[in-house]
């Protein structure tokens, strides 16, 4: 994964818990470096280890951490200068959700492929499709080669809603972890 993901995790922990907790998480995760270069690539296992370490240090369930990180990610990415990309994806939450694939397609073109040079996997963007759209409800189908990230997607959708000035209820209706071939999330604007 890109260093920016790990840096986002670092920013979230620093914002809510401070430097000492962050150092404990890095130590527990066995991270050699505690400074991440945002455009560089790091093994996925490092990010997963840090999430696991954060669970142990903070005593919070992984799902809750991932959801919180997903929500934080939207404001963090905007702060880092990627806000216009989100705006490009649409004016409303539903428009943005419909254009998420397009957004990831574009990101795939503009992010360097250092990962492949370092022997890591190349960028593996997730896929999103939208069905059953009504005025205030939509079903988002999320497919990814990475497992266990659906709670983060819930947070991402909540963060996107906040970015658009909306409040939503996101429910995992058919989790992949329960045997479905992909994750389905019902998004309802309140």
């Amino acid at each position, binding site marked *: 994964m890109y260093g920016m993901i790990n840096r986002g995790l670092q920013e979230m922990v620093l914002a809510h818990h401070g430097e000492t907790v962050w150092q404990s998480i890095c130590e527990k995760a066995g991270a050699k470096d505690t400074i991440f270069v945002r*455009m560089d690539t790091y093994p996925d296992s490092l990010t997963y280890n840090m999430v696991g370490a954060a669970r142990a240090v903070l005593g919070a369930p992984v799902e809750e951490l991932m959801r919180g990180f997903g929500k934080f990610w939207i404001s963090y990415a905007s702060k880092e*200068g990627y*806000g*216009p990309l989100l705006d*490009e*994806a649409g004016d409303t939450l539903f428009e943005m959700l419909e254009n998420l694939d397009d957004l990831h397609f574009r990101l795939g073109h*503009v992010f360097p492929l250092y990962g492949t040079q370092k022997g890591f996997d190349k960028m593996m963007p997730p896929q999103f499709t939208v069905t059953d759209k009504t005025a205030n409800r939509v079903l988002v189908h999320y497919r990814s080669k990475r497992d266990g990230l659906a709670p983060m997607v819930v947070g991402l959708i909540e963060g996107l809603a906040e970015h658009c000035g909306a409040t939503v209820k996101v429910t995992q209706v058919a989790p992949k972890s329960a045997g479905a071939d992909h994750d389905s999330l019902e998004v309802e604007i309140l």
Partner: protein
Amino acid sequence: MIPSKSKSSDSSAVHELLKELFPFTFVLDAAQRITDLGPLAERIFPTLRRSDLLLEHFEYRAPPVDNEFGSNSWYGKRPLTMSAKFAPQTTMKGQSYYDGAGSLYCLWWPVVSDHQALSSLGVRLRDLPPHNSLSDLLMVLRNSMLSIEDAQMLLDISRKKQDELAAANRKLVGETELVRARRAAEAASEAKSLFLSHMSHELRTPMNAISATRKLF
């Protein structure tokens, strides 16, 4: 089957298509008057009117262009840069094509290096057609900026560490000199004691003999 069109309707369709594909298009006549504008040009330059002379509002920056309409300096493969007189920070870059029938199509884009500059013109990324790579360029430039910021941060950390290391070295050297000085002082003190002890012995022995001899007298 695609219906056949007359030449004039073809020309009109191409005209509209160019405006859609290049929404900053300016169409000029032989007097360099604006005869039409692309939708984005119209939106971000609301003071422009059709029939206005282009050079009332813009000036050529590079390369030099002669005013003879249809001359080589106007044609396609050379990029033209224009700046707006009413907003000197607004620069347009692109190419111009003469259609051979009295119209010059100036296919321009604003020159910007970050999203903020584009947004201050009133243009959002989604206003740009998908074939336009400006939004990708802005993303790449943004990524480069992040890399430069990270390089600067790592350099600052490296300098701080070097300073700390140099201070630790200075302290260590100072301590080493102190230890050396103390050892030298201790060695000198020991040498002095040894000397006094030897001298005491060397003096006392003959003095004892002298003292004993003196008693015989």
